[in-house]
């Protein structure tokens, strides 16, 4: 088995780890690190029978994940303090939300940037409050990238904190303004859920919609194996509520993201054996195989493989993001830069 496939197989069924040989462990660990899944893998294999050396490596990965969790929660808290005077709802997204709400998807999960969602009409005030509290602009103000973000993206240009060196992405919706689906950002915020400590998270169905949008309606699927693992964990947890699948179907339609959500469910079932409602997921499509191949395109040295397939998905990501004329202009500017 190749690296990506091996990572997926062990996450899906950790008991197969007992049969791995030395070189397979090296492949598994390198691929899991490359996909930023080493913490999740280490927690998944906790208590399983693994070689002593592997146990030492996994124990270190679990300690590291625990420390990252502390940092993620602290960063969320610092953001809450900076934005509290504005009196607006601040919704945590992705990894930070999983950690802050203690969801199963947070187990061992790596957290990079802090992602938050705020009402669009408060963007200026939020940016000013963050700049006043020690965050700084990463992109040159009024440069092409900066203007591009402000005009066309679903988030502000990234800010980075001066002393803590952590990035924050402030979103006002979950897809670029140039994408064809138009998610209902007001509904995302209106139906968000307050958690302890004064911050909010998306409602369960919206959380899946966001994860699916991020993975299948935006971006080139790089690092997608991790995002799909989030979806698996979330679906398994949320599905304990019998009303969940119906809600998911409603919300996917409302945000114009039915196809992305259906694809997320099918790919999660295909790669991680996630139990899904076929009425929402739909029939398997031939093209799903291409998506799966792209998600698993990593060898046992941690290298990306299948360059043509990856390039095709890179092209697709731009196609999804921009109408053709705008894409032409964007590529022209980037090529000259």
């Amino acid at each position: 088995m190749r690296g990506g496939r091996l990572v997926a197989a062990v996450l899906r069924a950790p008991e197969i780890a007992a049969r791995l040989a030395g070189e397979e462990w090296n492949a598994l660990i390198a691929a899991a690190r490359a996909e930023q899944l080493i913490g999740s893998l280490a927690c998944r294999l906790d208590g399983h029978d693994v070689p002593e050396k592997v146990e030492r490596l996994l124990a270190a990965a679990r300690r590291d994940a625990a420390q990252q969790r502390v940092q993620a929660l602290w960063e969320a808290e610092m953001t809450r303090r900076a934005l509290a005077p504005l009196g607006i709802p601040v919704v945590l997204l992705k990894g930070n939300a999983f950690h802050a709400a203690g969801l199963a998807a947070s187990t061992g999960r790596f957290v990079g940037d802090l992602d938050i969602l705020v009402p669009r009409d408060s963007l200026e005030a939020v940016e000013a409050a963050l700049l006043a509290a020690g965050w700084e602009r990463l992109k040159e103000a009024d440069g092409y990238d900066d203007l591009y973000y402000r005009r066309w993206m679903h988030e502000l240009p990234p800010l980075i904190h001066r002393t803590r060196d952590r990035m924050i992405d402030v979103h006002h919706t979950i897809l670029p303004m140039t994408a064809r689906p138009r998610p209902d950002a007001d509904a995302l915020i209106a139906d968000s859920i307050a958690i302890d400590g004064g911050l909010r998270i998306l409602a369960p169905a919206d959380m899946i919609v966001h994860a699916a949008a991020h993975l299948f309606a935006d971006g080139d699927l790089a690092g997608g194996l991790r995002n799909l693992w989030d979806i698996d964990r979330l679906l398994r947890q949320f599905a304990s509520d019998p009303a969940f699948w119906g809600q998911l179907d409603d919300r996917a339609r409302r945000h114009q993201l039915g196809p992305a959500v259906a694809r997320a469910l099918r790919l999660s079932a295909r790669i991680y054996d996630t139990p899904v409602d076929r009425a929402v997921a739909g029939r398997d499509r031939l093209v799903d195989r291409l998506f799966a191949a792209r998600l698993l395109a990593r060898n046992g040295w941690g290298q990306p493989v299948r360059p043509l397939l990856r390039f095709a998905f890179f092209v697709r990501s731009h196609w999804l993001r921009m109408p053709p004329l705008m894409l032409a202009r964007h590529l022209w500017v980037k090529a000259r830069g």
Partner: protein
Amino acid sequence: MRHSLSLQIGPVAFRIGSAWRAPLEALAHLYQGYPQPERICDFTVRLEPERPWRRWLRPSVAIAGDYVLPDAAPMALAHGLLAAEMGMNLQMALGQKSYLLLHAASVEKDGRALILTGESGAGKSTLAALLGERGWRLMGDEFALLDLADGRLRAFPRAVSLKNGAIAVMEAEVDADRFGPVLAGTPKGTIRHVRPNKRALAAMAEPARPALILFPRFGEAAAARGVGQAEVFMRLTQSSTNYVALGGAGFEALNGLVAACPAAAIDYPDAATAIDMVEGLWEQAA
């Protein structure tokens, strides 16, 4: 990968893959006599072409692996050995979470360790390498690994990286067969690696209790001053690559080290003076 090699250095096993044969041949030669590596490795390092055609055409080596720095400059194939060394350093600096990593050289005597740390160019590598030939056991010239659980230092005796003037100093001291190739024109000038001696390799699994911390500085008149615990603590946080990432565990380990060890800053004009000063301070600390 086309070519691969594993190395065991102290408690850490590396798996190094390369698109070219030459860097690994140089590595295998330099690391002759190291113990058989564990089958399961701590880190993977990759030496790969920056672009597919750069394997043949004006070959340039990109350093990759489990942990990478974005925008790291690729290197000439002639410096492939250095790329492999830098790749291993990078994995340690970014990925090592089992030990507190100090950017420091260390040597051992009677089960107790001396830690030498300071800015690049302070002479810690050369000093440690010389001490390693004169009655001490070389534990490492680049990273000192402080065990988070028991506060002992673990050896990490990589090939010592000598730069510019230090090369001739060690050539006068050590058999020619322990040296790697001369790497001229690297970003840090001329570099030549030297393999630690048999004693350092044979004892690489033995930890040592830290006993003295020195901050050497080359190129000044001989002088020594004691350094207070607060300053030692701050300087060591700056010389650690993973202090912040380790959180509370890193703080506890560093605090224990600083509380247990006297420390001094030493200025020295030449190697012989430095060695006398080190031996004198070591006797006082004993």
